[in-house]
């Protein structure tokens, strides 16, 4: 079987980008964000406009979702659907690993915690659902950033605050990290937000390129090996939980 057809993959990336954009986009921005030349991008855009997937305002040059993409179909993962489908598997992940479990979705230029399971040790803990996390300093933030169709724009505009001694504020290094995360399917942060804690996150894929993160959160020395890589058994359990959550999400449709 041949590999993916490049033109369709590129067109889909452009549609995802324009659908999720919170402002109008022009050729220049679009080409830059999907990483294609202006002429290639223009060819794809023109076809998408002809087929009514996109609208083009010839006065302003703005592209926007067209008639075939009714606007209420932008199916971002609903955090409440996600929590409901994830609950048994997130519970099992916390029990199996002994760590807290967090799930996040991208909300503007932050990651929002949509589900939180306590560490199974009965010490008093505080539910963090609704809390916003910085994208550049947490594993579950980096993960939802890495998989977002609008990651290039977010990356350009993010304020990279130094939150701890370990926070990286280097934009180029973050860009490289995002590429690495997409290649490996695992995002980590070690003491970059709270100096005493780390997290390891993997993606939960929903419909239409939407992605949430499921992460375990705890002490760095318990999450990472001596070489600084996340423990393989933990990554395995994360992937297992993510697959079960995705299956659960499919069942609720």
């Amino acid at each position, binding site marked *: 079987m041949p590999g993916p057809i490049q033109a369709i993959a590129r067109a889909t990336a452009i549609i995802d980008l324009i659908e999720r954009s919170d402002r109008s986009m022009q050729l220049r921005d679009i080409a830059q964000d999907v990483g294609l030349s202006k002429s290639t991008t223009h060819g794809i855009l023109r076809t998408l406009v002809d087929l009514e997937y996109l609208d083009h305002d010839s006065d302003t040059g703005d592209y926007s979702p067209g008639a075939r993409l009714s606007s209420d179909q932008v199916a971002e993962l*609903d*955090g*409440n*659907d996600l*929590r*409901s489908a994830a*609950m*048994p598997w997130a*519970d*099992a992940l*916390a*029990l199996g690993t002994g760590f807290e479990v967090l799930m996040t979705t991208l909300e503007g230029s932050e990651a929002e915690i949509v589900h*939180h*399971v*306590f560490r*199974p*040790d*009965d010490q*008093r*803990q505080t*539910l963090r*659902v*609704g809390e916003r996390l910085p994208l550049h300093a947490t594993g579950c933030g980096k993960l939802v950033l890495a998989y977002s169709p609008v990651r290039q724009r977010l990356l350009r505009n993010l304020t990279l605050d130094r939150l701890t001694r370990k926070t990286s504020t280097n934009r180029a290094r973050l860009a490289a990290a995002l590429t690495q995360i997409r290649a490996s399917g695992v995002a980590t942060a070690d003491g970059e937000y709270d100096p005493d804690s780390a997290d390891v996150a993997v993606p939960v894929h929903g419909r239409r390129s939407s992605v949430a993160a499921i992460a375990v959160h705890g002490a760095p020395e318990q999450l990472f090996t001596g070489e600084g890589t996340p423990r393989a058994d933990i990554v395995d359990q994360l992937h297992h939980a993510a697959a079960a959550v995705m299956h659960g999400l499919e069942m*609720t449709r």
Partner: protein
Amino acid sequence: MSGQRVIATVDLGTTSARCMLFDQRGRMVAIAHREQRQSFPHPGWAEQDALELWRNVGRVVPEALAAAGLTISHVVALGIANQRETTVVWDRRTGRPVAPAITWQDTRTGPVVDQIADHADDFRRIAELDPATYFAAPRLRWLLDNVRGLESRARRGDVLFGTLESWLIWNLTGGPKGGVHVTDVTNASRTLLMDMHTLQWSSKLLGVFDIPEAMMPRIVSNSEVYATCATVLPGVPIAAALGDQQAALFGQMCFEPSDAKCTYGTGAFLLMNVGTSIVRSTHGLLATVAYAAPGSETMYALEGPIAVAGSLVQWFRDSLGVIDTAPQIETLARTVDDNGGCYIVPAFSGIFSPHWDSDARGIVVGLTSYITRGHLARAVVEAVAWQTWEVVNAMTVDSGVPLARLAVDGGMTSNHLLMQFLADVLDVPVMRPFNSETVSLGAAYAAGLAVGYWPDRAALRANRHVAAAWYPDMDPRVRRRESTGWRSAVSRALTTADGRARV
């Protein structure tokens, strides 16, 4: 996994039949489920096909084993939990039900209950219950009256009565070929026919309903080997059966007096362990058996059943089409900051505890042009919490013990807004344990204790941890104002003057 030994459970719920496997740490290893159809042929009627239910059990058990990569030889024992009060009568020779099962939501038996009203004192004294359409005996009487020839077949001993655990155990143990006909004490305590003090059928109450004792199952404890499966799990001992809410109370490890839990499913059921003596309610709660096992004293509970909880969200989704999925009730409710003065009283099958008004009907109050669907969604979520609040208030008065915290379980515990609002209106912490499948877990614990898989209850406690907790964070003035709004809405839904006279 070849050395792994597990406990299997079957939970016959209102909407599905489910099989789960649990390991020694109380962790769910696998789950399989099948939707269970319900039919509503007339207003107030609710039925299920008992044969479909039995067929579903035959499917989900092998599916769960396959999902875990295990075989029957890995199963140490089977525990059963079931929707209570649902009534089946079947032919002991053919194994065929004589009519559809009449489920706990069904209210057709109003006239039957009216006929025995003169004997209400006997029921209160012996069964510790006020006669109501909610219980099984009126349904059995209705079947004897309305299925042609059934009365004489019953007198000849040709047909058997049971709630769903009886039906399941009889079929598992061979059906027409030697099926064991038993019911557990918690299910029996919901028929109106059991003497709550002796835990045996009351011939006096059987006489009031004119029910032949020949069709009644033998009453057994919740945790002992009743028999061995002849099919589905051949050779595996059936070692526990509990009504689903008592199973959840056990699964939540509410072993001590004043421990309480609320399970949020189709309905919501709040049970409090009251110890080894029956506590009679004067505020619209039910006295019920919590747990009985050989060699230990029987534990009793006070129960506040709420007929409509998750089913209100389902109605919002399926009948009104306002949301696509049940969890999105929270998404919609969060589009507004409060209920905008709007309250929904979901008296779809009358109101159960603590008002017991079977003629009450649902209402929406406070509609103005300001109200959006977000406010209605908010009112849906809040209605579930306020109904719980009413039951908790009744329980505090009846038991004399204020609630210190509430343990919760069931699908709706994934609704974060509901759980926080619940903590806010109850003004106590709300705790969700790991494994919110407490109904099945309770059945597994009871079965595992019976066969020595776990040595004692203390060993179970090591498995219990808190997965989430919500703490009260509401201005008492807001709580007072909103509780007044709710109470006023309820008073408009009730048909009776004091709201408590028609049990």
